[in-house]
């Protein structure tokens, strides 16, 4: 067990309440001053199957959920079989001795089994089998020398709006678990200092929803799709009272087109989906750009292709985002890299969308969307900047040119309802006033020019956006032996690998790319050319970022660590690959 941190794993079947166990424990940790990172590995089946959740808590920022657990809480035999052998030396398996057994030889040397009669203990507090989880949580609190009151507090907050009896039963079960462990096993020798500084515990999707709400989101539409659905669930619970319409539509085609309609009349609009839903939206992404309607699309990637592994993570949709819709048109792709980033990316995306009147894609993935981590309380600035871009303002009586050619490509926007600005937004090519040229003007010399000018007007936005967004910067020592390149959700795990490499005496640094379109080709090229060795780390088969970097800079990243099995990276895997690369140099 590493000083200053501990890793737990809960495992069972879908329906066993693993996720809420994780969330409860994460909050207890946070209230005890610990940082937390948690990942829930689940499957599509609603009941049954195999689910396990790993949670790592410690005194410093936890950059990943870690790899091997110190404490395993198996809720069924399958979990015992699969996970008990992986428990780290010095760790324990705390289990319901009335339901499970530890067969001989299952545990590694130095791992202890801690039997708890959880069924009978729990049965005193209710018939719900999930009460056993609470017993186990109580036991874990004791094992880690944590404060039982913190657990009771979280249970109180969670069940507070249910009957008092439920709250009492939960607290009773937790206490019983705590007492049993106290009496029979005592504490582990985990070295953990607790403080009173508690931090918000958030998933990426919650941060995205919250960030968007804070940034003035007024319209959100979605069609359920893992791993984007929880943005909908969060927003529909919190946003309507702020005058934000949150709608589930009949499909993703309706979703994006409704959002475009809402944006057209002036509402800051966003949608959320995963890769398959985004595929359906692509035609309308082009529409948004052509009609110059701002809209933000959150695409949370899951393991593809096609339906693929809906509950597993992947960074496989970068090229889909780049290639979305026919023709050349301006759009922006932002890949936030951790939960805090999600909060601000939502507002930033809404601002860019409205300033440049274009679609902005926020590319996240299942891991980032759904995993939970603590962030610093003051990481969340509740007064985020809101930029609505150039508006036409009251009509000066002259006729209004919605698509006026300007240097930046941005023309002042008007909203229906304003007198004197009546115009038609069109997806056909049009002149400055929005009159379509496709019908009877196309191909006539003057309107061949109209077309060219409108293309140039639209595309010129990209140059100005590139100036607005910060280029990526190297993190870590300038003179590193190896540079680890990545994008999106892998930022923290790569960072952890960089730190681990440093501990092993290998100087490593990190180039993490957040803005994928437009692309800081110059800066990226310069940085990579200066690097001694470059390792691309991505959760996809073809090395999609590496290919983009090559397309934009010509730079070929020789070494690749590509993962396409749906599982998140463990720091060790990156470290090992980096060691291999540096040793072979």
């Amino acid at each position, binding site marked *: 067990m590493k000083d200053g941190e501990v890793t737990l794993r809960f495992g069972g079947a879908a329906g066993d309440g693993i996720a809420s166990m994780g969330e409860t424990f994460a909050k207890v940790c946070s209230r005890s001053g610990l940082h937390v990172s948690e990942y829930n590995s689940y499957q599509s089946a609603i009941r049954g199957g195999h689910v396990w959740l790993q949670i790592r808590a410690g005194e410093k920022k936890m950059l990943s959920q870690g790899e091997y657990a110190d404490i395993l809480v198996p809720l069924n035999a399958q979990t015992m079989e699969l996970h008990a052998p992986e428990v780290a030396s010095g760790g324990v398996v705390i289990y319901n001795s009335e339901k499970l057994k530890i067969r001989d030889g299952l545990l590694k040397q130095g791992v202890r089994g801690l039997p708890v009669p959880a069924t009978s203990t729990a049965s005193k507090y209710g018939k719900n089998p999930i009460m056993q989880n609470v017993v186990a949580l109580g036991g874990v609190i004791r094992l880690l020398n944590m404060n039982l009151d913190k657990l009771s507090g979280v249970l109180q907050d969670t069940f507070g709006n249910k009957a008092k009896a439920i709250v009492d039963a939960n607290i009773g079960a937790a206490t019983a678990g705590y007492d049993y462990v106290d009496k029979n096993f005592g504490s582990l020798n985990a070295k953990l200092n607790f403080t009173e500084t508690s931090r918000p515990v958030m998933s990426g999707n919650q941060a995205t929803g919250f960030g968007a709400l804070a940034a003035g989101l007024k319209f959100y539409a979605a069609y359920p799709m893992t791993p984007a659905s929880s943005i909908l669930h969060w927003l529909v619970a919190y946003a309507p009272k702020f005058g934000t319409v949150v709608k589930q539509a009949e*499909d993703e085609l309706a979703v994006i087109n409704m959002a475009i309609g809402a944006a057209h009349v002036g509402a800051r609009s966003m949608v959320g989906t995963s890769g398959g839903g985004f595929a359906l939206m692509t035609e309308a992404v082009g529409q948004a750009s052509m009609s110059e309607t701002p809209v933000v699309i959150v695409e949370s990637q899951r393991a593809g292709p096609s339906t693929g592994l809906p509950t597993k993570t992947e960074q496989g949709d970068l090229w889909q985002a780049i290639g979305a819709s026919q023709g050349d048109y301006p759009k922006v792709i932002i890949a936030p890299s951790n939960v805090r980033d999600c909060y601000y990316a939502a507002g930033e995306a809404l601002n860019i969308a409205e300033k440049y009147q274009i679609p902005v894609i926020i590319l996240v993935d299942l891991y980032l969307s759904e995993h939970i981590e603590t962030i610093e309380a003051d990481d969340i600035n509740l007064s985020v900047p809101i930029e609505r871009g150039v508006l036409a303002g009251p009509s000066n009586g002259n006729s209004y040119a919605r698509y006026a050619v300007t240097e930046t490509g941005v023309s002042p926007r008007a909203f229906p309802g304003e007198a004197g600005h009546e115009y038609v937004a069109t997806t056909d090519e049009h002149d400055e006033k929005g009159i379509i040229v496709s019908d009877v003007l196309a191909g006539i010399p003057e309107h061949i020019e109209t077309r060219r000018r409108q293309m140039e007007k639209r595309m010129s936005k990209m140059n100005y956006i590139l100036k607005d967004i910060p280029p990526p910067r190297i993190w870590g020592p300038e003179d590193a032996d190896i540079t680890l390149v990545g994008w999106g959700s892998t930022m923290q795990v790569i960072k952890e690998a960089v730190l681990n490499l440093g501990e092993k005496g290998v100087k490593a640094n990190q180039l993490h790319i957040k803005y994928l379109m437009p692309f800081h080709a110059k800066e990226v090229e310069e940085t990579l050319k200066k690097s001694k060795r470059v390792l691309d780390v991505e959760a996809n088969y073809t090395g999609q970022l590496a290919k983009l970097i090559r397309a934009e800079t010509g730079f070929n990243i020789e070494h690749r660590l590509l993962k396409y099995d749906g599982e998140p990276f463990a720091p060790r895997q990156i470290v090992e690959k980096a060691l291999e690369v540096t040793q072979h140099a």
Partner: protein
Amino acid sequence: MLDLNTYKVETKPDWCPGCGDFGVLNGVTKALAMLEIQPKNVLVVSGIGCSSNLPGFIKAYGFHSIHGRAVAVASGAKLANPELNVVVTGGDGDGYGIGMGHFVHAMRRNLDITYVVMNNQIYGLTTGQASPTSEKGHVTKSTPTGVIETPVNPIALALVTGATYVARGFSGDPNHMAEIIANGIKHKGFALVDVFSPCVTFNKKNTYEWFRERVYKLEEADHNTMNFEAAMRKAHEWGPKIPIGLFYKTERPTYEDEEPALKMGPLHKQPFPKAEDLKPILQTFF
């Protein structure tokens, strides 16, 4: 009634001479004038098709969207600004073909939108393929041996799906049509106005003459517009006599009325959240 010139723009409609859509443009314009709705308060949304060019020919706000998505775009617009008079105009292919899903779902939402479909029973802009309302046996570019599908019955579909105002017009009678559209706009809830709008270039079967011989007005036929079963029977009349006019009308709360976030009016006029109002939300994460 406002002057019809209120809605006049420079762009001349470029439909084929004689196209039924001219009549619909007149009908929509006249309806707006009758209701004295200012151009600034109208949003005309369309998809793609000959008919979908209509928003370019009328002074009002407009969104000339992509093929099949007009109703979805309009729904979003209405949900974001319920004060606008949202009128959707488009073709049978756009609305009953590729747009079928949105059409059905919009009706069951009962948004206060008026949907005018220029039903020419053909794909005009793509030069004459079968449409979902093409009659059985119709020989078109894509069905050289005749259509073998049963045509969509938009009136019957609207009746079972929840539209609260279900009517039909005919381009050959623009005044009657204007009346029907005006009542549709006035009506609180989803109004479908299916219009026989002949394509003089590609549909040589369902012509003005063909319709003139057949249509009769429900208003003159002792039809009870509050009776669902009667409306359904009329919806299935297709032969020597074909009804136009109002089939059915009923009252039901609109979607906008039931949407809590819209209690305060158009979304873009509502204030952005203040930090202190967001604080309690931040608290939930601790």
